[in-house]
């Protein structure tokens, strides 16, 4: 499967989706003006991945900030992985946050309330 490797900018995140190496990661900031335009290839990639997912997927969220327009798309991503999880494969979300980023921890907890995937919260050194 093709590898997605998008370099972040001041308003879009770094995204690495690599099935062969088992790397799934989104990091940085997400506040694009056109959320759908940025995330469309990512959502398409995940749809394709879902049809033949790895036995185990660990998805790392290392976001520093995301706007509310991005929050819905992040939920869409999580819902796609929820389907993979429900199909019997192992899926885990590693949600990273800094010690002073209570809001980011809370955001992770809110997603964990909505989707049925195991979440692990990882405290990053400041």
């Amino acid at each position, binding site marked *: 499967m093709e590898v997605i490797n998008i370099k972040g900018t*001041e*308003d879009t995140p770094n995204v690495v989706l690599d099935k062969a190496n088992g790397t799934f990661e989104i990091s940085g900031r997400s*506040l*694009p*003006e056109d*959320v*759908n335009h940025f995330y469309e290839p990512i959502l398409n990639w995940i749809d394709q991945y879902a049809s033949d997912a790895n036995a185990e997927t660990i998805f790392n969220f290392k976001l520093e*900030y995301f*706007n*509310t*327009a991005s*929050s*819905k798309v992040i*939920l869409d991503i999580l819902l796609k992985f929820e389907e993979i999880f429900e199909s019997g494969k192992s899926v885990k979300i590693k949600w990273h946050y*800094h010690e*002073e*980023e*209570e*809001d980011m921890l*809370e955001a992770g907890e*809110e997603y964990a*309330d*909505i989707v049925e995937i195991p979440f692990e919260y990882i405290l990053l050194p*400041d």
Partner: protein
Amino acid sequence: MNSVKENQSFLDFAYQLYKTMKTNEISLVYEGEVTQEITKTFTSLTEKSLTKSAESNQVQRKVFNVMVECLQNISKHADTLSEDDEERRGIVMVSKGEESYNIITGNIIKNDKVAELQSTLETVNGLDKEGLSELYKKQIKEGRISDKGGAGLGLIDIAKKTGSKLTYQFKTLNEDRSFFILTSTIKRN
């Protein structure tokens, strides 16, 4: 003669503005078009000045978050004075008080949208932290976000992150339009 007088009064105005800005620690005042480029510029300017000011990371992040939501609300939802005007304009002001940062934004809104916005604001102000979190989850789950990315979610997010009530006002401009002013307050401690 007249223009000399005008120049003089403009200089007086500039000096008054400078003094007012200094006294109230206003770090940013803007009236004009609000685009993604403007949003990026203002948030990065404010971020830099906050980093210098030794404000806690948590406060810095909250100010950044709230500014993004307020500015994107204008760039996505502001109405214009006339139908053929396409620029989404607004005012933006950031001030620092003893206890808090205030982010004040204002934009034109059509009168027929005022009731709905007002009811969203009242709902948000009537909820505590837990209630806001429930409403936020409900709204992203139901996907009640337009292609523009609903303004309602932005307001819930601002209230959640600031822990303060949203202060707002609608000033009627004419029979079709009003000016909407929103103040978001971020406590410094």
